[in-house]
């Protein structure tokens, strides 16, 4: 893989070496990562269930997204930072790990799905914002989101079982 040289350089940087060599640093970063992912998945499912028309039906979909998504984003940023730090500490091996690569693809899918929803699927949200029946594009986006994030958790576990 052409990127191996870049990844090799990355894992030799002082920060990356500090994480990989320190027995306590990696577990702490990893624990924060797990907590962050747990909160991303948990909060996004509140939104997804609303878009599916399954829960929080007494709340406007738009208001719900406004209220919940800031926490989802905050948690995601923490997950991304901690994930990047862990990746850096053993970049070449992670880059060649099937589950890590799969997890990145899934994250891309989640991002794409979100973009498509906010650009297209959200459609005329003013019309269906407070109805309990949500339009099918919103339902599809929500279902895809849930499935992708469940897979992210599964693949994340897969990394744990196949890395050391």
């Amino acid at each position, binding site marked *: 893989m052409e990127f191996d040289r870049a990844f090799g350089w990355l894992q030799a940087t002082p920060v990356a070496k500090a994480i990989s060599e320190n027995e306590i640093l990696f*577990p702490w970063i*990893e*624990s924060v990562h*797990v*907590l962050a*992912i*747990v*909160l991303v*998945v*948990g*909060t996004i*499912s*509140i939104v997804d269930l609303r878009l599916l028309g399954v829960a*929080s039906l007494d709340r406007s979909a738009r208001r719900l997204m406004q*209220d919940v998504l800031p*926490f989802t984003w905050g948690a995601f940023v923490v997950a991304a930072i901690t994930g990047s730090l862990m990746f850096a500490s053993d970049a070449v091996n992670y880059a060649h790990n099937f589950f890590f690569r799969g997890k990145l693809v899934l994250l891309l899918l989640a991002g794409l799905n979100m973009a498509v929803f906010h650009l297209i699927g959200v459609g005329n949200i003013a019309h269906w914002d407070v109805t309990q029946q949500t339009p099918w594009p919103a339902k599809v986006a929500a279902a895809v989101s849930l499935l992708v994030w*469940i897979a992210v*958790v*599964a693949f994340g*576990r*897969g990394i*744990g*079982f196949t890395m050391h």
Partner: protein
Amino acid sequence: MSPVFSKSLNAICVWIDQTPLSQAIQATSWVVPTVQTVHILAIAVVASSALMIDLRLLGIFWADRPMKAVFSRFLPLVWWPLLILFATGAIMIIGEPARSLKNPAFQLKMLLLITALIVTGLSQFFRRQDGTFGDLGSAPRLLRVAIAVVSMLLWSAIIFAGRWIAYYA
């Protein structure tokens, strides 16, 4: 830990390890990772629901909704997924008894879990005693904030301890 206790714990672990169910779980490579994934997803529901309640107690989330509505929306999602957590947890304990039961991180996790459930139960108890508990502007503010902060710290610690089981195995 007293010698009698650790000897009994050892004996229990050995006994579980030799049961057909444990052997079957150990022999089937996909069981533990799958069960762990379900366990994590259930934790996501519990922890996020507890977080929403705690953020409301702090007046940061859904401050415009009555506490009653937040409790009724999220409390069931703190308690019911516990069934899934106990079931998946049981499978993991049966499949790897020593890795869990003799593990200090696991033991700490269980202590923290009991505490977190007591704190959650307490907030429900306060609610029943005082119908305005949690409503912003109602006294005592310190109790509201304390319960929210302690709850968030406990659930975070539980998740940390869960991850650390692997490091003490």
